[in-house]
C-alpha cells in the first residue's frame, strides 16, 4: 500500500503540476485577450491575404487566402531545406572522405574548410553571401553570360526555361526506365545468390536511363525548346532579364550558406563513420580476395552508414530549422511571410506562432521518421 502510493504520488503530482501550469497560462492569456478585445480563432485563414510574395513555387496572388499564403510559404521553406540537404550531403561526403585522404594537400584543405565554415556563426555567413558576395555581382546590363546562356546578376541568376511538348510521354519513359532498373537489380541479386554470377547492373542501368528517354524524342514526338532570358530596359539605367527562370539572390545566398555550414558537420559525421570501422574488417575483406572497390561498397560502407546516419539526421533537422534565418535576407519563407507579414496584418499572434511552431515540429518529425526508417533498413540484422 505504502509502496504503491510512493510510486504513484510523484507521477500524479507531476501531471497535476503540468496541467495547472498549462491551465494557468491558458486562463491568463484568455483573460488578457478578453480585456483587450482580441478574439481567438482561425477564421482569418480563409480571409484574403492581400500581400504579394517575391518568389513562389505555386501560383499565388494577393487575392488568395492566408491559408494559401501559408502553403506557398511552407513550400519555400521546404525548397530551401531540400536543396540545402542535397548539397550539404554531397559536399559533406566529399569533404569527409577527403579528410581521410593520404594526400597532404587534400587532407589539410578539407580540415581547413571544416574548421573555417563551422566556426563562423550561420547568420553571419548568410549576411556575408547576401550582402557581400552577391552584392559584388554585376547589374543585369553588365552581366556576362555564364555557360553561354545563363546570367548571374545582382537581381538574381537567370537560366533558360524548358518548353516541352508531350512532356507526359517523356515522363512515362523515364518512369518505365526506373521501374526496369529496379527489376533488373532484384533479378541480378537473385542470380548472384543462386549461381554466384554477377551481372553488369551499373552499365545496364545507365543504358536504360539514357536510351528509353532518348527514344521518346525520336519516336514519341517529344520536343524540347529553351526560352532564353533576354535583357529588357525598364528605364534609362535600370534593366532586367525577361523570359527563362529567375532564381532570386536571396534563395541562392540562403542555400549556399546553409549547405556550406551544415556540410562541415556532415563531413565530420562521415569521417567518424569510416574511422569507426576497425582496420581488421578491411584486412579480412582483402584476405578473402575482394577488390578495394568491393571492400568499400560491401564491407566498409554498410557498417559505416550505421554510425553516420543518426548524427547526420540531426544535421538535417538543424538545417531545416536554421532555414528560418531566411527572414534576415528577405527570402519569403514560412517565418518571414507567415509569422511575419501575416502575423502583422492579422494581429493573430498566438494562433500564427502556434501554427508555425507545429509546422516546424511536423517537418522535423517527418525528416526524423524518414531517416529512422532508412537507419532501420541498413541496420545489421542479427540472425
Amino acid at each position: 500500500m505504502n509502496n504503491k502510493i510512493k510510486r504513484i504520488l510523484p507521477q500524479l503530482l507531476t501531471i497535476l503540476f503540468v496541467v495547472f501550469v498549462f491551465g494557468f497560462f491558458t486562463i491568463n492569456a484568455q483573460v488578457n485577450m478578453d480585456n483587450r478585445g482580441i478574439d481567438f480563432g482561425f477564421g482569418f485563414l480563409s480571409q484574403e491575404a492581400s500581400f504579394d510574395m517575391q518568389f513562389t513555387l505555386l501560383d499565388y496572388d494577393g487575392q488568395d487566402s492566408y491559408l494559401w499564403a501559408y502553403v506557398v510559404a511552407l513550400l519555400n521553406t521546404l525548397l530551401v531545406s531540400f536543396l540545402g540537404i542535397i548539397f550539404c550531403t554531397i559536399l559533406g561526403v566529399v569533404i569527409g572522405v577527403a579528410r581521410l585522404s593520404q594526400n597532404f594537400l587534400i587532407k589539410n584543405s578539407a580540415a581547413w574548410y571544416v574548421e573555417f565554415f563551422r566556426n563562423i556563426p550561420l547568420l553571419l555567413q548568410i549576411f556575408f553571401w547576401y550582402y557581400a558576395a552577391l552584392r559584388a555581382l554585376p547589374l543585369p546590363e553588365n552581366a556576362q553570360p555564364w555557360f553561354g546562356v545563363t546570367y548571374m546578376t545582382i537581381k538574381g541568376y537567370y537560366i533558360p526555361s524548358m518548353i516541352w511538348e508531350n512532356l507526359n510521354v517523356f515522363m512515362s519513359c523515364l518512369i518505365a526506365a526506373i521501374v526496369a532498373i529496379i527489376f533488373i537489380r532484384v533479378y541480378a541479386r537473385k542470380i548472384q545468390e543462386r549461381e554466384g554470377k554477377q551481372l553488369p547492373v551499373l552499365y545496364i542501368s545507365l543504358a536504360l536511363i539514357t536510351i528509353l528517354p532518348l527514344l521518346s524524342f525520336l519516336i514519341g514526338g517529344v520536343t524540347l525548346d529553351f526560352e532564353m532570358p533576354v535583357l529588357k530596359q525598364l528605364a534609362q539605367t535600370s534593366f532586367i532579364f525577361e523570359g527563362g527562370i529567375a532564381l532570386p539572390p536571396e534563395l541562392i545566398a540562403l542555400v549556399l550558406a546553409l549547405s556550406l555550414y551544415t556540410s562541415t558537420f556532415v563531413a565530420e559525421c562521415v569521417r567518424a563513420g569510416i574511422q569507426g570501422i576497425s582496420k581488421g574488417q578491411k584486412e579480412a575483406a582483402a584476405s578473402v580476395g575482394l577488390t578495394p572497390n568491393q571492400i568499400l561498397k560491401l564491407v566498409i560502407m554498410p557498417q559505416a552508414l550505421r554510425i553516420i546516419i543518426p548524427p547526420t539526421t540531426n544535421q538535417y533537422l538543424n538545417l531545416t530549422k536554421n532555414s528560418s534565418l531566411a527572414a534576415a535576407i528577405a527570402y519569403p519563407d514560412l517565418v518571414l511571410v507567415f509569422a511575419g507579414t501575416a502575423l502583422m496584418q492579422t494581429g493573430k499572434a498566438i494562433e500564427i506562432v502556434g501554427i508555425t511552431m507545429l509546422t516546424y515540429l511536423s517537418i522535423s518529425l517527418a525528416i526524423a521518421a524518414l531517416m529512422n526508417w532508412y537507419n532501420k533498413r541498413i541496420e545489421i540484422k542479427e540472425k
Partner: protein
Amino acid sequence: MFKHLKQLTSLFAMIAVLFAFTTEAMAKKSKTLKNTQKKGFVRCGVSQGLPGFSNADASGNWTGIDVDVCRAVAAAVLGDANKVKFTPLSAKERFTALTSGEIDVLARNTTWTLSRDADIGLTFVGVNFYDGQGFMVRKSSGITSVDQFKNGISACTNIGTTTELNMRDFFNSRGISYEPVAFEKADEVVAAYDAGRCDTYTTDKSGLAAQRTKMKNPDEHIVLPETISKEPLGPVVRQGDAVWEDIVRWSLNTMIEAEEYGITSSNADSMKTSDNPQIKRLVGAEGEMGAAFGLDNEWNLRIIKQVGNYGESYKRNIADTGILPDRGPNQLWTKGGILYVPPAR
C-alpha cells in the same frame, strides 16, 4: 504519506495564490498610470532609427517627433520629460510588444487603419504626422513619375507594414507586374536598394526623405511626386485602459493646441497671466484640467515647457534636419494645414 500530502497542499496553495494575484490585477483596469508612476519612467516603443521621427545619436539620446510624444507623456505624468525608457522595435514586433505589456506607448510612425484599431487590441489616440506612401528611384534612371514604371520592376520595402499592401493595390490597379523584396529591418531595405537589388524603394514619404539621408550618396536619389495612399501616423496605446489612453491623447493635443495659441517653451510661464481663458487653461492657470486623469493642474504646462509645442518639435526634428522643410498638410488648420485638435477645456 503525510509528507506527500503536505507537499500537495503547499502546491495547491501556491497555485491559488498565483490565481488570486492575476484576478486581482485584472480587476483594476486603469493601472498603467499607477505602474508608470511606481516605476518612475514611461515605457515607450520607437523605431529602430528613423531620422526626424525616432533616432538615437551616438550617445544614446533619442530625438524625433515620435520621441517627443513620449517625452510629453513623461512630463505630464512624471514631471520630467527625460524619464522615458525607449525600446526600439521592428515593424513586425511593435504591436505584440504593446499588447503584451512590454511597452505602454507606441510612438513609431504607425499608420492608423481600421483593422489595426479594431482587431488587435490597440487604440490609436491621434495623428502626429499626416503622411502618404511614395517611391524613391535613382536619378540616373531618368524616371520622374510612377507612370514610367514598367513590367518587371523590383521594389524594396519593409514587411509587416501597410506599405506592403498599398504597393500591391497600386501595381495591380495599373496592371504592372512587379517583384516585391520585403525585409524585416529598414536598414536592410536601404542597403539592398542602395546596392541596386531593387529599382525602387517604397515607404511613407517622410520615411523616404529620412532614409535618403542615410544613403551612400543622397543626391543620386529622388522621391517621385506621386502619393499613392493616406498614411496618418500616430501614437498607439493598449486597449482597456481608458484613462491612460486619454492622457496620451491629450498630451499630443496639448502640444498642437499650444502652437495654435502661440504658447512656446520659452513663453509658457508668462502665459499664466494671459487674458485669454483658453491659454490660461493650457498652462494650468485656470480650471481643473488634470483632475480627470488623476494628474495635477500643471501637467500641460510641463509638456509645453519641457518638450515645446508641436511647431517647435517639428522645426527641431524635421525641418531643421533638412528632412522635410515644408510642413505641407502638417500645418495648423489656421494656416492652411489639416492639424485640428478638439479644444482642451
